[in-house]
């Protein structure tokens, strides 16, 4: 799937002057930035800066009161999450949202839902087109399982897995959607060093092998600086910096936000 003739480096998603309020609480105030095709874009900031709210706006869970989001050159109206999914936006969640009673394999298969289209009638009988389709998607899912090195837990209900592996399965489910834009909400939260290194490797591989555009929220600044092409920094719902890791690292406002500043 190539995004409507977009080349690497073209603007895939543009957020313009977006504001989001919950009653009187301002979660996001007048934030603008863009995500270019093929890049790894990090969104960082202290707790409560509005990072997750931003992702929720992008994939349609929240609807900002002001501002516009343009995806693949088309300004979006109020949309539902499954519409965002059908347009090629996949995501993972801060505190893992998996189908806990289902196996790893089934969880990732669910990610293929949108790619399956055999008619209801055939599905009932598990014959003909439905069966062929099932086999074909199963093959794709097995590739992802190989890629993420989780063969050994294929048939384990994910509720039983340790946290680090659950995060990996969740990434697998998002990858199964063959997304154009992958949103990762703290993919490394709660992981030990080894797991973090694995996850970094997977994210870089996804980017280079599949050319997927990635937007990620992460607290580990070291990881962010290593992984990302460009970083946007939020604080109290406002954008305070935007640029390459080196630029952002040297920005006085960012240093103040992270280290605190005497008033």
């Amino acid at each position, binding site marked *: 799937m190539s995004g409507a003739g977009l080349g690497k480096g073209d603007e895939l998603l543009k957020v313009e002057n977006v504001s989001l309020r919950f009653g009187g609480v301002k979660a996001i105030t007048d934030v603008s930035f863009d995500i270019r095709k093929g890049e790894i874009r990090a969104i960082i900031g202290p707790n409560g800066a509005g990072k997750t709210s931003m992702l929720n706006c992008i994939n349609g869970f929240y609807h900002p009161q002001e501002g516009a989001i343009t995806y693949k050159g088309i300004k979006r109206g109020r949309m539902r999450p499954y519409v965002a999914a059908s347009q090629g936006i996949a995501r993972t*969640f801060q505190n893992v949202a998996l*189908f806990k*009673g289902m196996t790893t394999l*089934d969880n990732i298969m669910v990610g*293929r839902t949108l790619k*399956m289209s055999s008619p209801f009638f055939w*599905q009932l009988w598990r014959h003909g087109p439905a069966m062929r389709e099932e086999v074909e998607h199963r093959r794709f899912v097995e590739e992802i399982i190989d890629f993420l090195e989780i063969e050994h837990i294929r048939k384990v209900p994910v509720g039983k897995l340790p946290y680090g592996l659950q995060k990996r399965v969740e990434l697998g489910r998002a990858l199964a959607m063959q997304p154009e834009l992958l949103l990762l909400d703290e993919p490394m939260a709660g992981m030990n060093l080894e797991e973090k290194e694995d996850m970094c490797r997977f994210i870089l591989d996804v980017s280079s092998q599949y050319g997927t555009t990635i937007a990620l929220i992460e607290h580990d600044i070291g990881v962010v600086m290593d992984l990302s092409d460009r970083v946007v920094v939020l604080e109290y719902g406002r954008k305070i910096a935007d640029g390459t890791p080196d630029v952002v690292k040297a920005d006085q406002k960012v240093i103040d936000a992270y280290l605190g500043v005497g008033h």
Partner: protein
Amino acid sequence: MLYNIFIDPFVQMAQMPDLLVQTLWEGLVAGVLYALIALGFVLIFKASGVFNFAQGIMVVFAGLTLVGLYEKLSPSTGQGLGAFLALVLTIGVMFVLAWTIERVVLRPLVNQPDIILFMATFGITFFLIGFGESIFGGSPKKMITEQLLLPTGAIDLNILGGRVIIQKLDIAAAVIAGLMVAGLALFFQYTRIGRALRAVADSHKAALSVGISLNQIWVIVWFTAGIVALVTGIMWGARSDVSFGLSVIALKALPVLILGGFTSVPGAIVGGLIIGIGEKMGEFYWGPLVGGGIESWLAYIIALAFLLFRPQGLFGDKIIERI
């Protein structure tokens, strides 16, 4: 006393095998009907994590709609055609009902706690009672069994030195229920929509994020539950009459669900059979010891025992909770 409880019933069973077979068969049939009701609950519970209190009234509503439409249609179309036209129209009505419930009740309550959705199904129950009564009236109606070409009458078997009577309708009920359960179990386990249903049951937001439309899934599952309710309504209605009192049998589904597991389609049928057979056997062989009436409470005692020792039921998904 001990002799009466532990030995005498089994002696009776051995001495009069024909009575044993008759009791088992009646238990089996009651069990199939319990299983049908439980099935409606399981479907909705699986897909939305909601215990649908309205399932019992949906059974009544489907039955009343069928008979009511038949009464309106049959004078002009004749009996045979009228019955099947009414059946098709009732299926249509169940679809409209599912669609309306999704639109008016479920959609505004997405991401709310389960208890809120549970309370909403109470609302649906009372609405359907009022709506049904205002349209079809409150008096019991007779199910159109023959017109739907369901077999009537009984088979007399002379076996085991006695006589066993088997209603043909009961055989039909068992076959239909069996087919329906087998179909649904396969459907849930192996198809895309079945997987999507299970996914929605586990996590709404994750399901949304992979592109599953909750609205579509809910319409499908409430419609399926509506069809199950219709079949149940026909089968129960053929044995007694169709009246609002019938909705009380929905409560019998509770012990069945606890036994079989709230999330298991095969569990619903096995649970139903155990409760049905247990009840009839208990009533016939042990009932006289306590002056009868075991049938009305034995199921709940069995359920209580299960809650204590195996809360997820026989086939339910294991409750996995990481701390």
